[in-house]
């Protein structure tokens, strides 16, 4: 499929009187790697939720992978998320007491694939993120950096074209954070569009494109 993977035109999101996002225009081409930066409360997560179709905009139009989101039902949005978008969150959201392999395999749970296939793919994904030796480990037996890599493996299971990461290094020390960033860059190298949300300017400054948010508005864009 051709055309931009994400296309926002005048997208706003209001929570009552608060304008979390104010007529944002944003075009993301397939295969891009970009950072969304801005101070806390500037609307970064709101932007991620809207691009990730977890929340609907209150105004403006939004196209993801060629689909006009406004015209899709909640069920259709779920299907879109299942096959097109992978998410990585600041909190890793790993189920306690579930082995890494099964956590990752659940990345394809809603994709209609059989369990055996999901587990084979999960093993492959875990090897890809350097955790081939941790398949049966439980989340509490893994370091923070390893836990986030498990979450990344789950997000990219089934190779969604778009990966959204909201402060993926926010809960990590600098070494683990760097490893996760390397991993995201590697996935981008494999052709995935990667959007990284961060308030860390150092992380953002080394990425090819930077979208700066301020008070819910896209204040400036930097391309390198």
């Amino acid at each position, binding site marked *: *499929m051709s055309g931009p993977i994400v296309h926002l035109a005048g997208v706003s999101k209001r929570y009552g009187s608060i304008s979390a996002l104010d007529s944002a225009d944003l075009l993301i081409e397939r295969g891009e790697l970009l950072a969304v930066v801005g101070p806390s409360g500037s609307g970064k997560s709101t932007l991620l*939720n809207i691009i*990730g179709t*977890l*929340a609907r905009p209150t105004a403006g139009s939004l196209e993801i*992978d*060629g*689909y*006009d989101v406004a015209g*899709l039902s*909640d*069920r*259709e*949005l*779920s*299907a*879109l*998320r*299942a*096959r097109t*978008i992978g*998410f990585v*969150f600041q*909190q890793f*959201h790993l*189920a*306690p*007491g*579930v082995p890494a392999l099964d956590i990752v395999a*659940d*990345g394809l*749970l*809603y*994709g*209609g*694939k*059989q*369990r055996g296939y999901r587990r084979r793919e999960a093993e492959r994904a875990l090897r890809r993120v350097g955790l081939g030796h941790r398949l049966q480990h439980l989340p509490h037996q893994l370091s923070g950096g390893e836990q986030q890599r498990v979450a990344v493996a*789950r997000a990219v299971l089934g190779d969604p074209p778009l990966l959204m990461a909201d402060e993926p290094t926010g809960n990590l020390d600098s070494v683990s954070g760097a490893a996760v960033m390397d991993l995201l860059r590697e996935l981008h190298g494999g052709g995935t569009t990667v959007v990284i949300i961060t308030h860390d300017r150092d992380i953002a400054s080394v990425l090819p494109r930077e979208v700066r948010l301020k008070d819910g508005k896209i204040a400036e864009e930097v391309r390198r």
Partner: protein
Amino acid sequence: MSAPRLKPARMWPADVIRVGGYGLRSRPLRGILSALGIAIGIAAMVGVVGISASSAHEIERRLSAFGTNLLTVSPGQSFGDEPVHLPDTAIGMITAIPGVESVSAVGRTEARIYRNDHIPERQTGGIIVYAARTDLPSVIRSRTAVGAWLTEATGRYPTVVLGSAAASSLAVIETGPDSLVWLGGRWFTVVGILAPNDLISDFDYGAFVGWPEARAQLAFDGHPTTIYTRAAESAVTTVQPLLGATANPEDPGEVDVSRPSDALAAKQETEKTLRALLLGLGGVALLVGGVGVANTMVISVLERRSEIGLRRSLGATRGQIRTQFLAEALLLSLLGGLGGVVLGIGITAIFATAQSWSTVVPAWAMAGGILATLFIGGLAGFYPAVRAARMPPTEALANP
């Protein structure tokens, strides 16, 4: 737009069950405790049904063993001082009633029976000595556990047959020339011991001496005190009203006619009423168990907001979230239900075995128990599941 229509994939049934069991796996203790509530309710209901079914089965067994066509005739309560007894002719008169198949009788004597001649007078052990006709066992359908019943021959000698409880109270375990009891001031040989009679349990505490021997040695007046009548099954209701007047034409009102099986049948009826009451109580317990499951599910949904959000981000539809929590509630209840059925069967088995009944748990009670839990589980899980499904993904993912 050229993009194909989006359609969520269906979850495999095995995945629905696995995901439904997720909460149980991550918090087993909570799951088991809330399932326990259901289990207690179901166990109570299955136990009530099982015990009453086992009891009914036992009553049926006794009724069919001893028959419902046995009628007894005995002198009624006397108002004066005179001892009331049945006329000597009663047996013959009753035998002549159409529909009567067989008739036998016993006559109560005042004789006392002791283990040996050293026992003080007063310690009779509650054993009653009867003069008995030789055809008594065939009419009341009793059989001897040891030895044999009185015959025309043995009935003329100091021989005695003991009821089961009488034998154990006299410490008699075998029959024969060496097995002697002290009866009416002389030694009697025990020739037989009866098996317990469930229909006429009085006879378990009886000692039976031949009619001629009782007259000769025990100062027995020869009047029957109870006449046992076996009527044809179809004639029971026609024979019963005739018995009083036939046994004692001069004073039919002074005769008690009864049908021992009526008491058992009445017992069965009262047990049915009791069962309905206990079932109701079990139902209340089940309902409380259901509230427990609903409570667990509501808490579970609140605690697992981020899991719900994550699943939505992975592509779960509202329906799939709803299904997950409904499946979890059903699984919890089913677990409780199965445990409850097993527990209920166990309770029934223990109770029935203690009563030496056979254990009977009707299949409908087990199936009904499982169905009831599924219904309760569905009811308990419905609201929490709907709430979970309605939760907006962003709100579910937001930091608590």
